[in-house]
């Protein structure tokens, strides 16, 4: 008889909150209300314990070890790769490259695929709402190759202006790099439309999925994107982990990124040959416990299930949006119909830093500032916002307390 599967992600908010030990603390005398989930999510016990289990049970360096522990560690590491492959519906494990995060993954593609294929006058297409991590690596490669950067404009609701695509995508477009979900606005972008248009023009597409991966199911096969990048720490996993998905034929033709152990087949001073995928791009000892814990985070999400998660998150987004609309002088930035639970806002005449400081005094963690999207705020002609971002363990009671705290802070600052 098969044992009942362990409950690691209960479908009850109060029980679910028990799985996140960090949430149960006071900040400045008030119970913590953590609304900075777009920056990083908190970690469930199942993920935390997977790290402890690794270090207390089978820590060893992976691959090529003949001993027992090395086999256990290698097996767990490669199983995590297989979980990622299933999670995003890639075709083979060798399309999954472990990186230190989304930023690292984008830099990898820019410095290998970008540098080896871009020529003077070629174009890289980004959007106004990109995170600096999906702008700067492309500026660096544009600088060294003579390629040009073009930018998809947005509408006032914080969505791509799709009418501009036909003039922006042309025969010189080589790479399109955009986010799936905006970290600053919460907009879920219609990436499939863009991917198809880019492919017709012969361009390759990289999707920055950092903000999407914890909120919407990602199917790279359906999207048909050429690269997809995300971070473990934004999906209940540990920091220092990330994934680059790439189509196998592209990864095969790309030159290696970093040199070192693991990524080679044979080394001599005259000639070194490189290892096969995915190891070609994984030089040095990887973040073994992190990758294993990322696999645990995927199990956690799978047990919660997209349907339940999306229902909770939609409830939170609606409640937070209505709450902010009910406060006079508060304006929300990013009003697309398709959003993850992120609300970016300003209170009239009040600096975000002041409001953020007084919310912190009441135990509420939000983010203030430019959220690493300065070009986006230049477009809106403001310097930044306050951003409250929610996760499955937030509840409506917290939104009520958040409202009272906001009203108190605004009355102090007015």
């Amino acid at each position, binding site marked *: 008889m098969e044992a009942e599967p362990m409950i690691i992600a209960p479908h009850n908010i109060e029980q679910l909150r028990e799985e996140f030990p960090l949430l149960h603390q006071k900040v400045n005398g008030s119970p913590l209300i953590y609304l900075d989930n777009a920056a990083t999510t908190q970690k469930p016990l199942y993920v935390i314990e997977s790290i402890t289990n690794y270090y207390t049970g089978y820590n060893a360096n992976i691959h090529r070890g003949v001993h027992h522990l090395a086999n256990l560690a290698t097996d767990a590491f490669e199983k995590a790769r297989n979980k990622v492959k299933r999670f995003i519906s890639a075709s083979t494990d060798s399309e999954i490259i472990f990186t230190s995060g989304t930023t690292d993954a984008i830099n990898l593609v820019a410095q290998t695929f970008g540098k080896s294929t871009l020529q003077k006058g070629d174009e890289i297409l980004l959007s106004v709402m990109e995170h600096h991590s999906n702008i700067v690596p492309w500026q660096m490669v544009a600088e060294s190759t003579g390629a040009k950067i073009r930018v998809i404009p947005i509408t006032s609701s914080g969505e791509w202006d799709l009418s501009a695509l036909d003039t922006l995508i042309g025969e010189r477009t080589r790479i399109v790099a955009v986010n799936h979900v905006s970290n600053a606005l919460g907009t879920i972008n219609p990436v499939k439309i863009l991917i198809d248009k880019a492919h017709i023009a012969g361009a390759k597409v990289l999707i920055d999925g950092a903000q999407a991966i914890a909120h919407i199911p990602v199917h790279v096969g359906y999207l048909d994107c050429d690269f997809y990048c995300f971070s473990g720490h934004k999906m209940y996993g540990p920091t220092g982990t990330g994934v680059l998905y790439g189509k196998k034929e592209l990864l095969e033709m790309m030159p290696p990124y970093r040199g070192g152990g693991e990524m080679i087949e044979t080394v001599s001073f005259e000639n070194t040959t490189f290892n096969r995928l995915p190891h070609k791009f994984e030089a040095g000892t990887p973040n073994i416990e992190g990758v294993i814990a990322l696999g645990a985070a995927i199990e956690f999400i799978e047990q919660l299930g997209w349907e339940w998660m999306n229902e909770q998150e939609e409830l939170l987004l609606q409640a937070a949006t209505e709450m902010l609309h009910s406060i006079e002088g508060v304006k929300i930035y990013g009003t697309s119909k398709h959003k993850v639970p992120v609300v970016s806002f300003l209170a009239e005449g009040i*600096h975000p*830093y*002041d409001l953020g400081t007084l919310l912190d*005094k009441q135990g509420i963690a939000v983010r203030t500032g430019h959220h690493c999207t300065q070009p986006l705020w230049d477009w809106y002609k403001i310097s930044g916002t306050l951003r409250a971002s929610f996760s499955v363990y937030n509840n409506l009671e917290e939104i009520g307390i958040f409202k009272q705290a906001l009203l108190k802070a605004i009355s*102090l600052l007015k």
Partner: protein
Amino acid sequence: MKMGIEEKQQEVIDEFGVFSDWMQKYEYIIELGKELPLIDEKYKTDDHLIRGCQSRVWLNAAMDESGVILFTADSDAIITKGLIALVIRVLSGEKPTDIVGADLHFVKDIGLQEHLSPTRSNGLASMIKQMKIYALAMGRLPA
């Protein structure tokens, strides 16, 4: 008799001693921040801007004929502005050598040291550093 840096710090500490919770403290800081503009508009230029990540601070320093430095400053964030008002009250009108050597312990004593942490990026810590740099440079000028 004119108060020195230490006496002025003690005065601020005593003022804050009457507040029993964070709200009263911040209400007072916000009031300080709302008081008259602290800097002449002509100095609110990039030359006088101290770049904090989140709130911007403008600072100007001038030496008067008696050899003391007069600081004026402003910020776009009101809490930062209130904190600036306190720092200026303590350091403005002092001799360059006293400013350079000043230990601004009052910020910690009134429970606001978190605002000096570089991670707050509110420009306050950079402003104090810049005030000391001005004092160091102006102290070397011929009298």
